[in-house]
Structures are given as structure tokens and as C-alpha cells.
């Protein structure tokens, strides 16, 4: 037991010397690609008509366990693009310093307005640089977005029933 077993330890470590290394170089030589669903930061997006998607319902503010989101509801008015009356937000702040990345705000959003971004925010010298204001959140829209939105997450949990007509809605929940 003892002698052979003791030297088998040395054999294992020597064997590992000749294995290809597992670590990757530091970020400025190329960050490894993150998974599709990776959660890092946040973005507010525009909907398919070109309007801001957020309707100011403040549900994300209510669901956040850490109270990092502040939404100012800006009342109802007509959309310049579709002409329909809908809600708007007049100020959106997300404090990334305190966010616990639980994704509840994404899950709860009825308009798929807030989505997670796959790229991490760069570190800053000041706490305020990580306080995501409305402008920063809309600017993040162009970064690689995470795969899921509120609707996608909901459909994953309880997929919409496939309609008897030839509409393959069940695909939306998988893959």
C-alpha cells in the first residue's frame, strides 16, 4: 500500500505535466465565448415598431428582492409609431452594484423590455459608473443579448398549447 501508493501520486502529477493546459489566457487576449443564456448586465430594448418597449408598469421594481430598480412611470400617451395609446417610462435606474443577477425582473416583464446582456460591464473607478441609467441601458441594447426574455422564460415553464391549426407554437419553448 504505502510505497507504491505514495509514488503513484508522483506519477499522477507528472502525467498532468504533459496534458494540455486547462486555463485560458487573460481577457485582453480574447475572452472565451459565453453561453447563450449568460447573465451579466442589462439592456432596455425597443420593440418591433421602434418604440421603447418599456411601458412603465413598475413590475420589475416590485419584484426585485434587492430593490435596485427604480422606474418612474410617465403616464399614457400615443405611440408615434403605431398610434396606439400605451404606457411609457420616464426614468429607469438599475444599480448594478447591488444587483444579485436573479433575473426576476426579466421574468416578470410583460413587454419583454428588459433583457440581460451577455457581456460584463467594464469595471470603473467610481460607483456611479455601475449605476445603469436609462441611457446606458438603452446603449446596451447593441451588445450581445442573452437568449431569454420574459416571454421566452414563461414559455419554457408552461409552453403555449399548440393550436390545432398548422402553427408550430410548441417550438418556441424548446431549443
Amino acid at each position, binding site marked *: *500500500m504505502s510505497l507504491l501508493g505514495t509514488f503513484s501520486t508522483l506519477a*499522477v502529477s507528472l502525467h*498532468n505535466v504533459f496534458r494540455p493546459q486547462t486555463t485560458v489566457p487573460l481577457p485582453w487576449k480574447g475572452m472565451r465565448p459565453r453561453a447563450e443564456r449568460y447573465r451579466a448586465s442589462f439592456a432596455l430594448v425597443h420593440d418591433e415598431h421602434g418604440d421603447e418597449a418599456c411601458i412603465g408598469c413598475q413590475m420589475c421594481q416590485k419584484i426585485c*428582492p434587492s430593490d435596485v430598480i427604480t422606474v418612474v412611470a410617465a403616464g399614457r400617451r400615443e405611440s408615434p409609431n403605431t398610434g396606439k395609446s400605451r404606457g411609457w417610462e420616464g426614468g429607469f435606474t438599475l444599480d448594478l452594484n447591488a444587483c444579485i443577477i436573479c433575473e*426576476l425582473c426579466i421574468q416578470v416583464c410583460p413587454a419583454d423590455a428588459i433583457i440581460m446582456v451577455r457581456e460584463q460591464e467594464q469595471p470603473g473607478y467610481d460607483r456611479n459608473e455601475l449605476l445603469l441609467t436609462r441611457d446606458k441601458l438603452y446603449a446596451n441594447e447593441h451588445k450581445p443579448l442573452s437568449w431569454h426574455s420574459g416571454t421566452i422564460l414563461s414559455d*419554457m415553464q408552461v409552453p403555449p398549447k399548440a393550436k390545432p391549426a398548422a402553427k408550430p407554437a410548441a417550438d418556441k419553448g424548446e431549443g
Partner: protein
Amino acid sequence: MSLPVPPAFPKRNLDVVTTTLVGGLRAPAHLVGLPRPDPHMDLEDYDPDADLMALNWGPQHPSTHGVLRVKVWLDGEVCVKAVPYLGYLHRGVEKLCEKLGYAQITPIVDKNDYVSPMMNELAINMAFEKLLDIEPSPRASWLRTILAEIQRVASHLLWLGTWGLDIGGAVGGGATIFMYCMRERERILDLFEELTGCRFHYNTHCVGGNRHDPPVGWDQHAKEVLASIAERSREYDQFLTNNAVFRARTVGVGVVDPVLAMELGVSGPILRASGIDADLRRDAPYLAYDQVELRVPVRTGGDNFARYEVRMAELLESIRIATLLLDGLPEGPLSSQKVVKLPAGIKSTSGRSAYACIESPRGELGTYVIANSDRKLAGQPYRCKIRPPSLHAMALIPYLCPGLTMSDMVVTVGCLDPILGEVDR
């Protein structure tokens, strides 16, 4: 569906040693009734001539597994009395849970046992489901079992790595085993990243089911990862189990009396290494555990080496179970509830309470929830009480440490696998 019969497991040591009955369970006779030091011993009674050195081990220390402080009185190198001080990581989780809704509590409680977050989420959501009379969907139950087993593998890998650091040194052999374990654990975390988006603290369980459905190809990837970990675990075996230095450090050190352990509420690998055959997954099956034939490793050594063997065997067993279960994920919705959008819409639960417990890598992790009687606050529980297994393991410290040298204490406390996050909450 029937799963294949497992091949023969190594003969349990319980069959070859003399056992006695302790509280209705069989326990090895050579461990029962070991002399117990008095944890409240007055130091004047010890030896008036001894020059005892009072040393604060922690809370800042390279190997206290969190912010644990143990005040030890040393007679030379040998510990005479040890008093653990807890609470350095207290974050008021249970107080916070008093004002949050059901959906919001999961990410908070996630951070208790920060090494195996799936377990925390599972425990709390099972308790909520019991409280609210909600049945999780079959697909979710199955997926939760798979995730729990994979998380168990990751947790035991981390335990092995950090324990190696305690024995062998952060600049030395311990660092090597640590790196190997982290290498494997990273692959599991990558799996979770593909599934949920987070490597850690996923918030993927919810009341009634799960949030994230496995993407296409995930189960194939998971099987590959698990198979490679099973392969690599042979290396760990070669690296540690028969090494003379390792054995000298762990065999016979920190022997736990099963009676003492049961009196203190210890469960999990510590109890199983002392010969008590108890495992919640098999004795009180929840989720999909009644569909698999679970083999529970039991050892009769009671020492650090026995706990190491038990955890390594559990690691391989979890890999086996997860691989088996990955094949049979039932179709259907991932949650039996529509997403709980706001803390409202829950039916009235006034006056009710529920307790749900699971087998976490450290033992029995339980959650006791009391529902709110106030109808306006129906979407929040009144109180969540979490029963962390590591807290009971901490209670062993004043009994185990007297008589051990300083080095042995480090190794033994590391082997009890405390996670201060769940001890202090």
C-alpha cells in the same frame, strides 16, 4: 420506466463489524461509547501547572472554511478546549425572508450554502410547495433530481480540493489536488451556465417547477462531462488514497461517535462514515429518487479517512444516478404553475406551516415555513426557518478537538465540511 440494475457495490463495512442498536439504528460497536471530553471544562481544573496558550483560530485564517472562529487552548501542540464562535457571516437571511414574496425568496436563500445552491433552492421551494399544496410538474421533479445530483458532485469536488489545501498546504500538494478538482468543477459550472445563464446562484427553481428548460444537446453534454469526471476521479484516488503521508494524516484522526453525532443532530456523510446507514434520498424519497436504486456508502471508521471514502463514493454514485436520469426526462411543462408574477394570486393559507427536508451534500437541509394569516400579505410567508446541516457539524467541534494537535484540528474541521454561509445565514 425501469432503470437498469446497478452492478454490485463494494461490500459495506457494516456487514463485517460488530454492531449495536442505537436509537433503533445499527451502529458499529467499536465507535459507540467513546470517551467524551467535557466541552464546558473549567480550565483551572485541567492542570494548575500547565501553561496553556489561548489561540484564536480564525476568523481570518487560511483554512477556516469561511469566517469561523474557534478559540482553542493549547497545551504545547495539543488542544485542551475548543470553543467555536459563530455568526461572523450572519446576514439576516431569515429576517429578510419575512418581507419578501415567494418568488423573491429563492434568490436570497440561494446564497446560504454557497457551494451547492441548487440544494438551497430545492429545499425552500419544496417547503413552499408543501405549504401551498402545489405539486411540481413531473418534468420539473425529474430535472430537479438531475440538477441536485450534479450539484452534489460539484460540492464534493470543492470539498476535496479545499480539504487537500488544509492537509497539504496552499503551496504544495494541496494546491495540486485543489486545481484538479476545480478543473472538473468548472466543467460542471459550464453545464449550469448553459442551462440557466449563471454559473452560480441560479434562481432556477420556482414554486411549482423550474425556470430553465435544458437546451438541445444539454443532456448529451452533461453525460460527457459526468463521464469525464468519473474517469478523472480515478486520478484523485491514485493521488490520495494510498499515499502514505495522506493516510498518516487522516486515518484514526477525528473519530466521531455515532451516538454523539445523533445527539447533536449531525447527518449526512459524517454520520454515514460513523456507520449509521441513513440517507434521506433512500429513506424518505422525494422528487424522482424513488425511481432509482440508490446505493448509500457507509463506512465504519468514523475518522477523516472514512469521511473521505464516503464522499468519494457518493461522488461516483451521484454521477451514476445523474447519468441514468438524464435519459428519461419526461415531456411536459416545466412548471405546474404559471409564472408567479407578483406576490399575489396565492390561495389563502392562513395558519398553515410546512417542513421539507432534503439530503444536501452536508446532511439534512430542512426548511420550515409558516404562512401568513394576514390576507393582504398572502403572497409572503410569515417566517422561513432554515435548518442547516453544517450548524450541527459545528456542534461537534468542542467534542472532537480536545486531544488533537493543531494540525489535526485543521484537517478534522475541514473534513466536517462546514459552510459558514449556511451555518450563520
